[in-house]
């Protein structure tokens, strides 16, 4: 009993302490000229879909949820954003080589087709980021066309 109490207190203190470790915030007002939407001629429908469902982790600007400053959630989010951006950063699209663009487009198609992206843990909270079957079809159609045009 006493041991449990001590463990409880230690955990609580730990939780309070980690609140003092801030994370880097992925936010930027500037949209670079290399942005996917500026480089390509993207239909409005697709643009909104990609910005809502992908940009939080695949661009330099995250629209953070209210709980984003609570640790360890902030670390969890930061980890996802860093991974996401290193895989694909829509803001840097124009800087990618043609070869890399093709690779990325192909991966986008397969990830969306297989329902791996957007992440389940993300759509759980961001209901609007979830892609319907019709939306997936539109998105995949556009991405495939873009890939074939390269």
């Amino acid at each position, binding site marked *: 009993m006493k041991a449990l109490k001590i463990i409880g207190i230690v955990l609580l203190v730990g939780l309070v302490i980690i609140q003092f470790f801030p994370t880097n915030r992925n936010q930027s007002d500037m949209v670079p000229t290399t942005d996917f939407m500026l480089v390509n001629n993207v239909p409005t429908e697709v643009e909104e879909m990609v910005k809502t469902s992908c940009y939080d982790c695949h661009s330099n600007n995250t629209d953070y949820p209210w709980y984003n400053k609570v640790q360890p959630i902030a670390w969890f989010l930061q980890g996802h954003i860093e991974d996401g951006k*290193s895989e694909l950063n829509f803001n840097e699209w124009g800087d990618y*080589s*043609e*070869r*890399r663009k*093709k*690779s990325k487009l*192909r*991966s986008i198609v*397969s990830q969306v087709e297989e329902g791996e992206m957007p992440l389940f843990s993300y759509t759980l909270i961001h209901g609007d980021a979830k892609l319907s079957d019709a939306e997936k079809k539109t998105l995949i159609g556009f991405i495939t066309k873009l890939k074939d045009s390269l």
Partner: protein
Amino acid sequence: MRKANVKTGILAMVIIALTATSCKDKKKEQESEEGHHTEQMEKGGQMDGTMEDHSQMDHDNMSHGEMTMMSSDIVTDYLTLKNALVSDDQDGAAKAGEKLEGSLKSFDSSKFADDQQGELNDIIEDATEHAQHIAKSDIGHQREHFDVLSKDIIDLLAITGSDRTLYQAYCPMYNKNKGAQWLSASKEIKNPYYGSKMMTCGEVQKEIN
């Protein structure tokens, strides 16, 4: 990983810059005019810089054999990866992917002609990403990445040449009948995209030497 690479890259550049500057300083101690900076460096390089001379020689005179040696490790690791996929061996493919990532990263494009370096760097960058993914994915994804990786390696060998005879094979069914290529050391078809499910699907398109 990425951060570490950037850091190493910056460190390397700083070291190169420092070395180059200090060499120049020794040679041109008396002349200290800033404006002549680059001109002097170039002159120094041509006249007696051992490092510069060496790389200059590589640019012009790298023989076919030397070029194929540069891609030799990459081909070896690629074939190990291919064989693992043929035997439906996800763990083996992951290990080979990791090894291939290392070989790709140690590829030195600076020994090649200037007009080839850009293309080579693009290929290596793309292939490295695919190798990284293969190292940590399930076999379905490994095969997807292997498809694009194979294109990268074929394009790489078109520039560097191959140190051994390879056969470029083609499976018309993979990727929803869009088709996919791969390289093999043998003429016999052993399909890395389907493994035991469709071992002999495909045909040899050409021989690469």
